């Protein structure tokens, strides 16, 4: 392994948030963007072909080493923590905000048909949504959108990578799972 690749690997290893190419450039004091992205590609390939315990994820505009999903059960056993669960209500509200943002509380409530204040508050506290500003309407209601943590949680490069909304006519017999 050449030095550049190894150095980038060590940076990926210690970085706390997804590492952007720009950031790597500034740390390494280089202008050679191609060399960095070649190294990243090569690392991603090595992790994949070597079937290592981790892989290189492209998420929230940067790169991050993450453990392979197949091993989730063993890692959970090691960590012995119950991961925080998002309730069905929270997932519904979150997906509405993700797809319809920028969005008002009233939009979320119109779509869900129920009061969603508490759910929004939960999502705010978990850092998955944020207040983007206020709308120029009576009462100056708050506008909501998703955060970088939202992208990180769902392994998304950016919002364009959100799964496309399904055309209901094509769905036929399948129904959403009640026990989501």
């Amino acid at each position, binding site marked *: 392994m050449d030095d550049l690749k190894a150095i980038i690997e060590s940076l990926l*290893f*210690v970085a*706390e948030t997804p590492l952007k190419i720009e950031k790597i450039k500034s740390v390494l004091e280089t202008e050679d963007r191609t060399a960095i992205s070649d190294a990243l590609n090569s690392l991603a390939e090595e992790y994949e072909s070597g079937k290592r315990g981790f892989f290189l*994820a492209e998420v929230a505009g940067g790169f*991050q*080493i*993450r*453990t*392979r*999903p*197949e091993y*989730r*059960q063993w*890692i959970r056993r090691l*960590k012995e923590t119950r*991961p*925080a*669960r998002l309730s*069905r*209500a929270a*997932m*519904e509200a*979150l*997906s*509405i905000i*993700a*797809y319809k943002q920028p969005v008002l509380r009233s939009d979320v409530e*119109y*779509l*869900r*048909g*129920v*009061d969603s204040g508490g759910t929004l508050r939960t999502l*705010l*506290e978990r*850092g998955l949504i*944020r*207040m983007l500003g206020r709308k120029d309407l009576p009462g*100056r209601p708050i506008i909501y959108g998703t*955060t970088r943590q939202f992208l*990180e*949680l*769902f*392994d*998304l490069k950016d919002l364009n990578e*959100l*799964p496309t*909304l*399904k055309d*209901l*006519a094509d*769905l036929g017999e399948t*129904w*959403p*799972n*009640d*026990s*989501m």
Partner: protein
Amino acid sequence: MKNIIVNKKEDQTPYQVSLGELFDGPMDLLVHLVKKNELDIYDIPIALITQQYMEYLEWLKSVNIDVAGEFLVMAATLTHIKSRMLLPVQEQEGDDEDPRMEIIRPLAEYLQLKYAAEDLMERDRLDWDVFLRADLDDAEASFAGDPAGLAQVGLFELIDAFQDIVKRASPKYFLDITPDAISVKSRISQIADILEDQGSAAFPELFEAEATREDIIVTFLAILEMAKLQLIRIMQHIESGIIRIFNG
């Protein structure tokens, strides 16, 4: 070592049904009914759905589940649609659409987003399917932060900090933050920006961007407040009569 290949369904916690969370809302209940009857959502037999919906509400009441207001609103909507369906179609009005669209449209959109939520849940979720390296507290990691670069902080943390203080503060000093008061504060900050950049500003200049009467009052109050605090000096040119505001 036990089986390494994990069945995707098996490793998920079974969903605990408690009566209180049976249905998340009226839309959810409608989806359940449409699904149970294997209906085409674009051709819902409204009488059947209305009847079953009402039966559900009755049943919920009979087991002492408080039926929230939004369920009753939906009941009224369904009943209304049902009654409109019974009226003879007036052929003259060409733009008379199927009354059921009132419920089908939001239902379709709700379903679509429910599917989207499922798609999201199927992705490899952080701290559920995939994990990051632990944040090790090694000696190497303790570096002084660069004062220039600050971590983006959630506004929520700011409110949290403030809320804690409000809780601790004596009730006598309790803060009532009305939007009006904030507008004045905001305007003070903006005027300070202008004066910082330019050193001074003509009085009318500060009102230029203002459209509404309310905005003008806010600006005026801001200037008065700043003058009271001696943050600014207000001077008038003897000959031209133009009033200028200076940094205090």
